[in-house]
């Protein structure tokens, strides 16, 4: 597994040395969420009502934006050739890249999410649910995103296309993520929603690397 961790280490290193990898996704997240009080108006009960939805949607978009370089950067400098020539299966390497992406994007988003929840006037229980739901759900965002990033690597206008391909696939996570928060906020049990989020992350952890690796091989043809 030493190759796996070597890839994780390198991608984290790159994320942090290259213009504050984590920082940017987080800032985008914060800026987008704060656009809403400006757009919708500062009425507290409206904000509290839409809070969980807005936070989740912004998290999707933030995860998405940082995805388009996942394979593209390596493709452009020839590194993807060498990554795919490693004796280790490409699927493992893709999984390592997803893990690094989640550690450098998903985790920081989760860290600031409570603050944004407060900003939107969400109740305490809801914020707890939000953090839990994001912990279980955001890995799937990185994994599904990897498939889209692989498919659009080396493609004209990859960025916009990526969002087109990936956002529809994010919808289930959004739905269950939000319902988990709502259930927690209203004192109902969030368990089934959280279980489904966990199941989706597990499913995609197995299936997404397969699809993404196939897509990456294609980009190298």
């Amino acid at each position: 597994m030493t190759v796996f961790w070597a890839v994780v280490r390198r991608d984290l290193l790159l994320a942090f040395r290259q213009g504050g990898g984590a920082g940017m996704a987080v800032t985008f997240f914060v800026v987008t969420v704060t656009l809403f009080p400006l757009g919708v108006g500062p009425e507290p009960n409206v904000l509290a009502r839409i809070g969980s939805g807005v936070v989740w949607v912004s998290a999707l978009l933030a995860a998405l934006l940082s995805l388009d370089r996942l394979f593209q950067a390596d493709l452009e400098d020839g590194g993807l050739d060498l990554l795919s020539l490693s004796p280790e299966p490409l699927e493992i390497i893709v999984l390592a890249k997803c893990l690094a992406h989640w550690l450098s994007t998903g985790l920081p988003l989760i860290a600031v999410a409570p603050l944004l929840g407060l900003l939107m006037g969400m109740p305490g229980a809801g914020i707890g649910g939000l953090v839990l739901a994001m912990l279980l759900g955001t890995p799937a965002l990185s994994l599904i995103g990897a498939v889209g990033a692989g498919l659009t690597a080396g493609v004209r206008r990859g960025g916009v296309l990526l969002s087109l391909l990936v956002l529809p696939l994010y919808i289930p996570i959004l739905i269950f993520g939000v319902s988990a928060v709502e259930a927690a906020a209203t004192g109902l049990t969030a368990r089934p929603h959280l279980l489904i989020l966990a199941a989706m992350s597990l499913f995609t952890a197995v299936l997404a690397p397969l699809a993404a690796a196939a897509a990456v091989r294609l980009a190298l043809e």
Partner: protein
Amino acid sequence: MTFSGENLACLRGERIVFQNLGFELRPGGMLLLLGANGSGKSTLLRLCAGFLRPFAGRLLYDGADIFSQRAEHRSRICYTGHLDALKAVMSVSENLLFWTRLSGGDAQRLDEALDLFDLGGLADMPARFLSAGQRRRANLARLAMSRAPLWLLDEPTTALDKASCARLFGLMAAHRHAGGMIMVATHQEIEGADSAVLPLDDFSPVEAVF
């Protein structure tokens, strides 16, 4: 240990680049790929590395089709392409160590490899400060740490000055001497009088028929 291609044809963007192409490499052998632009040198190298599948024909390593043993084949080759695969924000030695670990090369030989390509003083320099020639040398230094028997080199002398070229040729000779095999695509002179030549222009289809 032999590496050979039989009756190869390759299709790119619905056009045949070459066809009926065959070659054979034995331990200590070197094959020079020559030909005009667009004749398919890079394509053939990528085919041999397993990035592409041939449209027709077979690629055999020790008699077995390389696509039937992909993982093994990947550990047999060391490929350098047109691009240098260096991360601008990582230092030369960080870059080299990562690729070596990834391909199962010999990380112990880092210093040796750096010295060989005169990169000793640049080991801790982020790659973005390197000149084109230095970048190329950093990429080639992987060869000195590789354990792979088959080297696939796509125009390795691009951007190299005379002195570095000589060092590269020395390294290639040593690899062949130790029983390795080399395929090189090139537009420039490559030292190695006894090497076989594959003129790719001869294999382009007379009239591309579909």
